[in-house]
């Protein structure tokens, strides 16, 4: 499309403004992570100071948040991986095979995402107690699957629908079984979609707070749960809080940077649903 020079300038300006609106709060907050306690909050805000790592030391050593980091990593990657393994074939089936109840099943699966976590917390707890799953990673992963699998199925189905079934049929004519056709022909095409799905689900699992709070234990407390402990009744420990925030944000941002091309490509693939 043709755009006038004026339109381009306006566009750049708007983007600059929006970018500033994004960057300033984040940077200002994160600077606080390096401030000593006495200037966590000050009026007027202090920008020049000698940075210190004491907040990080407090957070990792005294409060043992390294443990929380480990738990977050295990639970997030574990649940996303299993959600993909279970959800991709299911999405394929729902995309390719028109059987009775396929639409109803799809709608039911997606409606699972609408459940407010508060109400499922007690039954989950009882379930965990019965099967001795409390304080285990596998328990948390199972709990997260309830919310992740529907999203995986929904998104992946959209991608599979985009791809003409002629592709597998060609392969099957050549002698491949359906599974082999799926693996060798379809999956490579749909890989950006898988990556996009995985990233969005990872963000959800990584940032999830409520279920991790109630169902977690010493071995399974995740980073968001740890973050909340710095909101004390007496005062918010801003420096420690932003130190942990930094830790929470960094992996997701790095992943997003690495995967940005696939993310965009993946999302543009499966938007017809």
């Amino acid at each position, binding site marked *: 499309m043709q755009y006038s020079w004026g339109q381009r300038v306006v566009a750049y300006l*708007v983007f600059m403004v929006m*970018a500033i609106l994004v960057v300033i709060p984040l940077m200002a907050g994160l600077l606080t992570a390096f401030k000593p306690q006495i200037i966590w909050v000050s009026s007027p805000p202090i920008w020049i100071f000698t940075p210190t790592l004491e907040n990080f030391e407090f957070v990792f050593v005294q409060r043992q948040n390294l443990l929380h980091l480990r738990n977050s990593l295990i639970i997030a990657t574990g649940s996303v991986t299993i959600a993909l393994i279970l959800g991709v074939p299911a999405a394929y089936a729902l995309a390719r095979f028109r059987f009775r109840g396929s639409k109803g099943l799809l709608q039911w699966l997606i409606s699972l995402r*609408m459940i*407010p976590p508060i109400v499922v917390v007690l039954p989950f707890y009882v379930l965990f107690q019965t099967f001795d799953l409390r304080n285990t990673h596998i328990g948390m992963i199972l709990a997260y699957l309830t919310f992740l699998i529907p999203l995986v199925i929904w998104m992946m189905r959209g991608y599979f629908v985009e791809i003409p079934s002629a592709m597998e049929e060609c392969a099957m004519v050549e002698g491949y079984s359906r599974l082999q056709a799926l693996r060798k022909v379809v999956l490579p095409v749909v890989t950006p979609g898988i990556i996009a799905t995985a990233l969005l689900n990872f963000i959800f699992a990584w*940032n999830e707070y409520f279920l991790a709070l109630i169902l977690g234990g010493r071995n399974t407390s995740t980073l968001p749960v740890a973050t909340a402990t710095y909101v004390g009744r007496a005062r*918010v420990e801003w420096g420690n809080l932003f130190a942990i925030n930094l830790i929470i944000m960094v992996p997701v941002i790095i992943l997003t940077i690495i995967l940005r091309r696939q993310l965009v490509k993946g999302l543009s693939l499966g938007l017809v649903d």
Partner: protein
Amino acid sequence: MTAPTEVQQASIQTAAFRRWLYRVSQKYVHWFFIAPALLAILAVAIYPIVYSTGLSFFRVSFDSRERPFVLLENFIWILNDSDYRIVLGNTLLYVLVTVSGAFFLGFGMALLLRRITVGRNWLRLILILPLTIAPIVVGLTWNWMLDPLFGLINWILPGLGLPPQTWLASTSTARIVVMLVDIWQWYPLVFLIMDAGLSGLPRPPYESARLEGASNWTIFRRITLPMLRPVILVVLLLRTVDAFRTFDLVRVMTDGGPAYTTEMLSMYLYRTAFNFNKLSRAGAGATIMLIVIGIVSALMFRFLYREVERR
């Protein structure tokens, strides 16, 4: 031909059996694909869902170990509670404003991105950042920014000639501010998806429209919008469902105050269950909430599928 021997007869029967098995498995092959996922969900989700729906029909609370059956008592109480109505109204308003705000802003930014040639990827990256941050963190960061005495915003305002505001303290501004922060966090999602949608649009219709001398606006209205319809509906559905469940962000910023102006449904349910100890009342409230969301999303779903069939 001689009559088949016993061994031959046996192998014929096995072959027939194997053929039958193949035919059956082909017919029901889809279930093999779906079964693992379905089993996992059934195992983990069914019991909690049944339990929590059933919860609404009993009187379960954290006050006692008795759980008497009271058919509709919880529903009647909740529907009569003026607080519940206020909260429902707050939530609907919140969903309406934040979803449409995020939508128009995100869509607008995606369209504007078309006009930029240099540095597209970097801009995309920066703009996506709020999406990747935990809602708790977003809420706390903005709390800090908006603090009346120590916040950055009130420090900048005098420089612009405006008086410092008590953003989260007054009934008129608290709501608006919280909704703005929500939009700040989620418009990048709309931006990302719409941007991807726009990149995926085919060229030919645009070229022929150009040849016919159509204006930018006509092209947008007649070509871009209709092609993007499915995408738009997906994005709206996704955001609507999530906006209904907003909890972390608002709770950490205002905790429902001042005077219940920012109290959301999920916070109200949390309070009822864990602060007031009335677990089954919360269950009834949640069931009603599910029905409302269900209706809204079923309508959107219908619309969405109708479009696809037509294509």
